[in-house]
């Protein structure tokens, strides 16, 4: 109970301070703000260590159990150990084994996962653009105008198509986006104020 009240007190004080310092012109407040940012980095670094230990613990446990997922856990552990050895022994500069593995394994694998997005966009668009209702029909028409308006053939067909595409993006789409952003802003302020007031305590793990 005392730990909870202490956590709430620290959160309230920190929230109030961060809000107030934003509006202040004071070197002492700025210095305190910079110190708090440093603290955050230190806390995060320790949290990352705990997180990595957790990942290794989970995969060591999985590796010791029979099952089809052992190969994935083994790969993860081997990768973690090898990259640590490369990093600590040879550094991470150009020409190092660490950077070679990063450039020739990690980067292509990331590109591969990212390239999946193109197929997923096509698949999601297919489902979303099926004109099953009035709203879907409007969505399809707007999407077609924007798609054609953004490629050279749109200008060739009619100069009104790129103009219409720009109008859709700059007027109705932007208006809707701004409305959503205003709502999000209000929601964020409300949540932050609830934290500062001690009403919202999810950061304590739902207690």
């Amino acid at each position, binding site marked *: 109970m005392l730990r909870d009240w202490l956590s709430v007190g620290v959160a309230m004080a920190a929230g109030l301070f961060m809000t107030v310092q934003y509006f202040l012109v004071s070197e002492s407040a700025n210095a305190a703000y910079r110190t708090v940012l440093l603290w955050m980095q230190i806390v995060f670094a320790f949290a990352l260590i705990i997180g990595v230990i957790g990942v290794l613990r989970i995969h060591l446990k999985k590796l010791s159990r029979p099952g089809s997922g052992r190969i994935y856990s083994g790969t993860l552990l081997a990768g973690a150990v090898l990259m640590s050895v490369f990093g600590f022994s040879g550094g991470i500069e150009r020409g190092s084994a660490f950077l070679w593995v990063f450039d020739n394994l990690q980067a292509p694998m990331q590109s591969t996962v990212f390239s999946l997005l193109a197929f997923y966009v096509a698949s999601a668009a297919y489902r979303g653009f099926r004109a099953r209702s009035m709203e879907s029909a409007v969505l399809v028409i707007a999407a077609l105008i924007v798609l054609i308006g953004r490629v050279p053939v749109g200008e060739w067909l009619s100069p009104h198509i790129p103009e219409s595409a720009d109008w859709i993006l700059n007027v109705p789409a932007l208006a809707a986006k701004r409305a959503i952003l205003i709502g999000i802003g209000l929601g964020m302020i*409300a949540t932050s104020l609830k934290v500062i007031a001690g009403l919202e305590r999810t*950061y304590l793990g739902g207690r």
Partner: protein
Amino acid sequence: MNRPRQLSCLLSSLLPGLTALPVAAAETPADSLSGGWLAAGRNAELAGIILCVIALGVTAWLARRGRTPRLRSLPALDAIGNALGRATEQGTPVVYITGWGGDMARPTTMASMVILSEVAQNAAGMNCRLIFPSHDPLVASVAQETVQQAARTAGRPDWYRPDDVAFVSQSQLGYAAAVDGLMARERPGAVFLLGTFEGEALILAETAHQSRAVTIAGTDSTIQLSFLLVACDYTLIGEELFAASGLVAKDQTIAAAVWGQDWLRYLIITTLLAGGALFSIWGFNLGAWLTG
């Protein structure tokens, strides 16, 4: 009285603690009130914050006096129970994802944690496995506490499995690949995508759809929102995510914040309409006046 001075006086009366904060050594309290220690160009933001404090304070006070607001239900929230029931019947787990874009300091992640608590309580009650892969070790720690507490509240402390609520990777696409693989192997009955998402949003949503899971999404990222809207079964649009956290909270004071947000929304709409009318009729730029 000029406007910065008016705002400073208003601020001093509303937030007495602020005047006690350290000011630059060369300034006297009188200088401070003339706006010397208040950051220039932030008057409108300050006034906005004060209005938010008033609106949320008044609605919380009214809620404590029994004036509870009537909040409409959200289809995505109503679908949570059905999604969990479906997963339980199929004997499949549910996956809860807060996205790669948000850390624990982001209000969206906090709102998502409130919903996680509700989902975990229901899942524990139904004995349905819950998996929470996280990109951030701090989010993972809070989620572990939240799920563990939810299990205790549901009377099923043994249901909580620490290995299911864990940090995965900080790399965006490494995280996406890990969660994709998890969904492909475990075939979850329901997937919750509630938080701040970036490029991984559609990869995760489409994989969830391909694994035939019920997908319930909500994000504050306007770019990813369009992807989630077409790819997911239910979507909380922007502010609805925050409203949902208020709705699932059993505390009326917290739910009253949704009411306060509505008041502020009406005020913004009125200001926008007034600004348009003033500029169209008299050429008066309300926006420039408000921002000094």
